[in-house]
């Protein structure tokens, strides 16, 4: 019962946090790198842009907040994240991610 309530509360929280359908409308700036299988960054070093599908929602939110704050550094991600509102971040995370297991 308590567990059920806890789960219920957490899904409500996520539903209130981000809107997956709205996130889908906002992901034009993501898909050029993250939506291309095997896409590799050219700058500052070469490696594959990470897969986001199925990532934990809370991690995507944290990563975008860190990029926006500049506490995590990547030239393109810092400038892209700087243009996002809290709501944008929540919507995008809801679109790409899933609730943690």
């Amino acid at each position: 019962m308590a567990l059920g309530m806890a789960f219920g509360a957490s899904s409500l929280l996520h539903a209130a946090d981000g809107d997956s359908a709205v996130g889908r409308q906002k992901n034009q700036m993501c898909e050029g790198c993250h939506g291309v299988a095997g896409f590799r960054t050219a700058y500052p070093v070469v490696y594959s842009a990470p897969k986001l599908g199925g990532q934990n929602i809370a991690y995507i939110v944290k990563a975008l907040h860190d990029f926006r704050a500049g506490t995590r550094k990547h030239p393109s991600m810092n400038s892209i994240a700087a243009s996002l509102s809290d709501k944008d971040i929540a919507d995008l995370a809801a679109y790409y991610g899933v609730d943690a297991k």
Partner: protein
Amino acid sequence: MTRPLGGAPKTETKTMKRILLVAAVGVSIAAAGTTMAGDYEAGRKKAAEVCAACHGEDGNKTLTPDTPRLAGQYYDYIVHALLAFQKGKRENPLMSPMAKPLTREDIHNVAYFFSKQKGLETKY
């Protein structure tokens, strides 16, 4: 310019040395390439020791919601992330100390292991 009579053989020796050097470089590149691929079994063992508690045994079951899933993530991205933590270019109170003691081989092995698990996907 006069050359000693032994000039020709010396040149040959030099040529041989060059060939050997080129061959040796080739072998080391090939060896580095092998390391790059990562050792699945060694990666599985190391991951069970140092990564599984927070990321889950296969990288899918995370301890906290804001811990990233690693299952199916790109091999070279995981290597990049671990090196960044190790060099202090990316910082996290939990990950930085975990990454520091890893050898280059450990990094490639655990990255290879997680990249081969079923989980994350490219989403357009």
